[in-house]
């Protein structure tokens, strides 16, 4: 803890910045509570990352849209009434009634145009007649909803084959995934992305800020030029532009996008500190005893600046968690096989219209608790590390 120790063997050791900060943090009740909450989330992330919990989130253990247990068995009468707006999944309760609305037309089209085997226009032919009939000249009869229908029919069959829970403690989504497991898996993705991206941004910002502030001159001019370019383009526009050119989804891609665009604020703060420190006497003294530039920058000055980087790391983690949620919601974030709070909110948007609110509630509450705790912890950390407050 005593990174910035100025202890000397002769005198009684006076507490360093980190010891003082730690003491202040422990004395602060709000800080301790928020730290405990953030710690709990981190443990959850670790446990789910190593596969201890929620590894089987992808299992379809309940009927589609199984409600939370306290609301009892699914209200079937309400669902049939809704089925007008339904996208097909809720009819799991009535497997026999699933019907491809286009099957008859497609079959008829194929029969008349293809002139070949005329498929009987029965309800479940969508799967069998999926093969497109070639009409020559590249023209084809294509069933526009064929793949989706096949999927719906398959889930319907599966749900009749195996028995599924009618309700879960926290409810289920369209496919019958347990919502609480999705939330835990989503926390893992969102927290990892937020933290990793903040780490990248803080490293870049601190390094560039140190070089720029310490050396000044043309290096400073060059890096300031970079800074002015990155800040001239509004943040979200820049992120979307980079997402457009990369055109590939992945957790690492989004970490890079957020990290490579988010360093500017940290750069500015760290640079100002290095400008201030580089002319101080202790740095001149280090120069006099022959310390190299790198040593002066990172061994001598950095411990006096590091608290700024730490607070910024915390600030940016919260910010990037929020950004990741929005990007994933828009479909530019994590890939489809991953679950994040943003993709959950994306699904929840359609579910809400059907009256299934539990996935939305679960993702919202989990995110709100983490972000509130993290913001309060960041504030406490900033206060604790502020050398002006003793």
């Amino acid at each position, binding site marked *: 803890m005593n990174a910035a120790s100025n202890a000397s063997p002769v005198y009684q050791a006076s507490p360093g910045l980190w010891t003082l900060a730690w003491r202040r943090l422990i004395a602060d009740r709000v800080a301790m509570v928020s730290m405990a909450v953030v710690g709990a989330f981190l443990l959850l992330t670790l446990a789910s990352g190593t596969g201890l919990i929620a590894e089987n989130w992808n299992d379809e253990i309940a009927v589609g849209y199984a409600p939370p247990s306290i609301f009892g068995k699914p209200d079937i009468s309400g669902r049939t009434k809704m089925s007008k707006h339904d996208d097909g999944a809720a009819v799991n309760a009535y497997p026999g009634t699933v019907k491809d609305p286009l099957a008859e037309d497609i079959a008829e089209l194929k029969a008349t145009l293809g002139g070949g085997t005329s498929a009987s226009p029965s309800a479940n032919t969508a799967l069998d007649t999926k093969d497109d009939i070639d009409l020559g000249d590249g023209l084809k009869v294509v069933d526009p909803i064929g793949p989706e229908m096949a999927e719906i029919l398959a889930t319907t069959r599966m749900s009749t084959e195996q028995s599924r829970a009618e309700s879960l403690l926290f409810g289920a989504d369209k496919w019958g995934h347990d919502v609480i497991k999705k939330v835990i898996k989503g926390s893992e993705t969102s927290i990892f992305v937020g933290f990793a991206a903040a780490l990248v941004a803080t490293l870049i910002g601190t390094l560039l800020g140190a070089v720029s502030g310490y050396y000044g001159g043309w290096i400073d001019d060059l890096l300031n030029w*970079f800074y002015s370019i990155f800040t001239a*383009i*509004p943040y979200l526009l820049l992120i979307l532009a980079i997402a457009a050119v990369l055109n590939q989804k992945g957790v690492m891609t989004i970490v890079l996008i957020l990290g490579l665009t988010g360093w500017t604020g940290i750069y500015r703060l760290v640079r100002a500190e290095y400008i201030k420190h580089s002319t101080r006497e202790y740095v001149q003294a280090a120069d006099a005893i022959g310390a190299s530039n790198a040593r002066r920058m990172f061994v001598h000055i950095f411990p006096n600046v590091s608290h700024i980087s730490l607070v910024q790391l915390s600030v940016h983690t919260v910010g990037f968690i929020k950004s990741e949620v929005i990007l994933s919601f828009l479909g530019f974030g994590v890939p489809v096989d991953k679950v994040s709070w943003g993709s959950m909110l994306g699904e929840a948007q359609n579910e809400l219209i059907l009256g299934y609110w539990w996935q939305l509630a679960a993702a919202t509450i989990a995110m709100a608790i983490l972000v509130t705790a993290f913001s309060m912890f960041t504030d406490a950390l900033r206060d604790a590390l502020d050398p002006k407050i003793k």
Partner: protein
Amino acid sequence: MSAFILRRLWQMIPTMLGVVLLVFFLFNFVGGDPAYLLAGKISNKEQIENIRTQLGINQPYYIQLWIFIKQILTGDFGVSWATNEPVSHIIATRIGPSLTVLVPILIIETIVAVLIALAVAYVRGSLTDRAIMVVCTMAMSVSLLVYIIVGQYVLAYKFSWFPVQGWGDSFAENLFKYSALPILLGVAVGLAPNTRLYRTFILDEINQDYVRTARAKGLSEHKVMLKHVLRNALIPIITNLMIYLPSLLIGHFLIERFFSIPGIGREVILAVERSDFPVIKAITVYVAAATMISNLLADLLYKAVDPRVKLK
């Protein structure tokens, strides 16, 4: 003054050049070969070559860069790859709807946030102050997506107080019918962070000596708060607003998307989804230019409202 403006404009040139280089680098090196994107899945060598010649990708990079710079200067970015609509026409027609929604949001949000901030700053440290600050912190923790999803569902879908989405031809219809809910939600989203921010600005002023002097000479609390404190707190508030101004141009893209408002923000998202590079390139470059000009205006305004500020 004019020397300052000239110097700042002069300093914009390298930054603008940097933005152009960055966008060029992103879309011409990182983005891969757009010919494959354009030709789609069924394509042969001949088609690809055709498209490449059309786009000028076969030419050396300095010529491509020159073409890009010429496009920026003439404002002619060609046509959208997705819809064949001229890019300049896209930008010109999408700005109106964006501003229709965003300008009212900005005005209402600022007035309401400043009033709440004044009130809570006046009773600072009290239970009301702390309660409102806790509510603000919690309100900021809920993703803005949730406000829009739930607001649209409850107020438009469930209660039918507002149209769920849509956009008409007449300005009045757009503003009062279709924009009402987007504006309401936009204000709701921005209220908590702005109230918190403005409260700190006002608290910085409220402890100053001049406030004590004003009270000592017997001014009413009204006058102290509205005339002395607010006027001084307006300086950082205006700066904050000016920083926010360029984002008017890309719109509140989430709100535009949810409510199908044909603005610039929705256009950007559509363009990213369709890999419609000319549209993204054009919007990025122009918004960057607007941001720089807006920053310059912010500095000038800063000088106008606070005579102590010296422009360097």
